[in-house]
């Protein structure tokens, strides 16, 4: 709750306060507010805070994604000392919107949050105050309004089909399908899935680079938080094929389209489209609630670094040629750029690879093999443009560029400050066409240090992806439970495990046995279940009749031998969405 209060309250107060305090001060207030909110998200990690009659539900998923969003917001703030006090304010609004969106199970709150998030972004897109900026803003706005209308209509139909505004309400029939698909469309628009992606390249290119950074890193966070709640694998037969089609188009279009680009921001816009598709793969699997946040974090870090470096070059268009020789001109920027590009490309052992690995295996678990292959093939195609950037960074700078560098250095000397004006590493003369945004973001100490911190985090995720995964996993350290089931198995088509836990741990998402084949019937053999924690007991149900307590996970890995009685008469079993007793798997 405190996180919400801090974010919303601070945003409101700061709106008024900005009239009296200086611009820089309001920026730092915003920064510290974000930090504070982030810290409060960490308090009671693993616990779910529920408020407002369940409309606010701050669980691990929400916590993790809020922190990702806050990181993005902090980055944008620290990079972009805009020349109007509203900039930090708008960023703060957007982050608050993401937080609200990530921590609600209610569709109406989601749509409100979506607007809270979007309206600042429309404005930020025009921040440049030039033709391109306005064009970007207007396109974003009109398409966004259209998407919002579609979302609302979807909510209306959803209500008609289920009688509820809460996610996860059971439903069926064409009306339900239509409702879910309308909602899917709205979110597909937000995360720029083909063919609802049209805004993305134009807006990314037309916005100031700092804003693009913000969009690229956090907007997806909000949308995926909501999608993870709405599109759970239980409803796979309703929306699965639709999402699969969208993902297929997305990864194809994103990667192929990027091949033709010559402007850096636009290139990474296409890359971002493709990545949206990849992240979407995580929705299919049973543990998308963990792997998608991991992807968002690692992708956010890498893309953030890329756009941060771009921002230090310019807030305007950045032809790819301007990246030439970055390694020789600014080794830190060049190196960071290179590593991040490789991470986004998904080359092991960088974090991007682990992220891709995780979401791809989600799709594989769900049996979407064609999609997995396509995703991997398009990743390989994507390698071309990522490597293009990579090697541009490591190319020798041209003579003209070297001359410009000297000029810039002279300019720096003139200002006599190292805390300086973002010396454009580029050929753009100082002071030209920077619009409302401050000149290319500072390359001073704070900026560089945040870059280093991001790099460090990326490195950490690369070396220890398990750490990131744990971070987003609900509950304390999970224990592994192995169950050996001896025959007979006929007739046990609806069976489940439950963990009887001493203290109920609400899970936003049932954590399936990762190692048991999903959707299969209960079979003899060894099964390993993840989740559960030391002290939990394992109970096995067959056709909804309990087989009794079969073992407890006092250690990290327990083997229990289950001997099934003769087949019980089969009965229809629909798994209830229990609150306290969390069903772990509905079938082995």
């Amino acid at each position: 709750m405190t996180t919400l209060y801090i974010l919303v309250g601070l945003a409101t107060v700061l709106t008024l306060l900005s009239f009296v305090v200086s611009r820089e001060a309001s920026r730092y207030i915003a920064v510290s507010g974000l930090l504070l909110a982030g810290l409060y998200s960490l308090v009671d990690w693993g616990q779910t805070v529920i408020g407002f009659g369940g409309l606010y539900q701050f669980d691990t998923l929400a916590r993790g994604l809020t922190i990702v969003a806050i990181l993005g917001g902090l980055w944008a703030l620290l990079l972009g000392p805009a020349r109007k006090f509203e900039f930090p304010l708008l960023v703060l609004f957007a982050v608050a919107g993401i937080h609200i969106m990530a921590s609600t199970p209610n569709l109406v709150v989601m749509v409100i949050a979506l607007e809270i998030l979007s309206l600042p972004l429309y404005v930020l897109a025009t921040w440049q105050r030039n033709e391109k900026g306005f064009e970007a803003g207007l396109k974003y706005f009109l398409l966004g309004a259209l998407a919002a209308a579609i979302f609302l209509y979807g909510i209306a139909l959803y209500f008609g089909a289920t009688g509820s505004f809460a996610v996860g309400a059971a439903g069926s029939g064409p009306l339900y399908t239509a409702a879910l698909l309308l909602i899917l469309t709205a979110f597909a628009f937000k995360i720029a899935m083909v063919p609802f992606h049209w805004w993305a390249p134009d807006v990314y290119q037309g916005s100031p680079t700092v804003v693009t950074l913000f969009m690229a890193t956090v907007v997806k966070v909000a949308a995926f938080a909501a999608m993870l709640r709405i599109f759970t694998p239980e409803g796979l037969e309703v929306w699965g094929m639709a999402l699969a089609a969208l993902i297929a188009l997305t990864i194809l279009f994103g990667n192929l389209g990027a091949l033709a680009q010559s402007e850096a921001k636009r290139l990474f816009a296409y890359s971002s489209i493709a990545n949206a598709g990849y992240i979407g793969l995580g929705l299919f699997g049973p543990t998308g609630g963990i792997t998608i946040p991991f992807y968002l974090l690692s992708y956010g870090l890498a893309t953030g670094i890329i756009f941060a470096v771009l921002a230090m070059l310019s807030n305007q268009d950045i032809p790819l040629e301007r990246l030439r020789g970055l390694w020789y001109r600014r080794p830190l920027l060049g190196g960071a750029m290179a590593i991040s590009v490789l991470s986004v490309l998904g080359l092991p052992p960088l974090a991007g690879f682990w992220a891709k690995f995780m979401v791809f295996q989600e799709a594989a678990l769900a049996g979407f093999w064609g999609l997995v292959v396509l995703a991997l093939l398009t990743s390989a195609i994507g390698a071309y443009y990522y490597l293009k950037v990579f090697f541009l960074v490591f190319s020798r700078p041209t003579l003209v560029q070297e001359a410009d560098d000297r000029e810039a250095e002279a300019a720096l000397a003139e200002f006599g400050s190292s805390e300086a004006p973002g010396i454009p590493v580029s050929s753009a003369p100082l002071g030209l066409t920077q619009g409302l945004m401050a000149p290319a973001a500072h390359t001073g100490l704070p900026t560089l240090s945040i870059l280093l911190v991001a790099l460090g985090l990326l490195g950490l995720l690369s070396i220890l992806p398990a750490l990131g995964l744990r971070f987003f996993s609900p509950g304390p350290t999970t224990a592994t439970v192995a169950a050996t089931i001896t025959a007979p198995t006929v007739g046990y088509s609806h069976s489940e495990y439950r963990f009887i836990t001493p203290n109920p741990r609400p899970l936003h998402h049932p954590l399936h046995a990762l190692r048991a084949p999903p959707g299969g019937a209960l079979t003899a053999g060894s099964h390993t279940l993840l989740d559960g924690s030391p002290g939990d007991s394992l109970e096995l149900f067959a056709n909804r009749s309990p087989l009794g307590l079969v073992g407890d996970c006092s250690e990290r890995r327990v083997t229990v031998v289950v001997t099934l009685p003769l087949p019980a008469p089969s009965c229809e079993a629909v798994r209830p969405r229990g609150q306290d007793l969390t069903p772990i798997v509905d079938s082995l």
Partner: protein
Amino acid sequence: MSVGIWEIVALVLLVITAIAVVRLQNAVHAALALIANFLVVAGVYVALEARFVAMIQIIVYAGAIVVLFLFVIMLLSAASASMGKDLFPRLPWVAGLGAVGLAGVLLLALSHFQPPASPPPLQGGLPQVLGPLLYDPQQWLYALLLVGFLLLVATVAAVVLIEPERIASQPGPEAPKDEPGVAER
């Protein structure tokens, strides 16, 4: 379900005004058609036992929001601005087809709707019954607060948008000198 004459009339009016909104060449006329449409909708709301909503529809939606539209249309003298050559002359046909398809699909989906046999009464949708829902912390208070916040956001956003020259004319006193550059133009 019986369909009465008033319902037919209202439906025809709804569709006509809606088509007018999207087809009338004069922007002012289109906005006026939208107001008419909203008024018809408000009437329908009353018929559907949503009286408070109907009131808000008239006061806020038709009365304030669309009037804002009218205001802006006039401000920009965009009422009947000649747009020059249409770059995509065949687009209306495609859009028409798309709209028909969309309508068809939605109608098909809605036709599967199964209303409950005996719905609880709505008590006319009066403020007395909506109010407790709206202000109950266990119900919709959260959303209401958020909507308030949203309006704040919208206000700030709009202010930022329409006051672009502030910086150009008077750079903030605390603008660090290390931020060279001027606003465009």
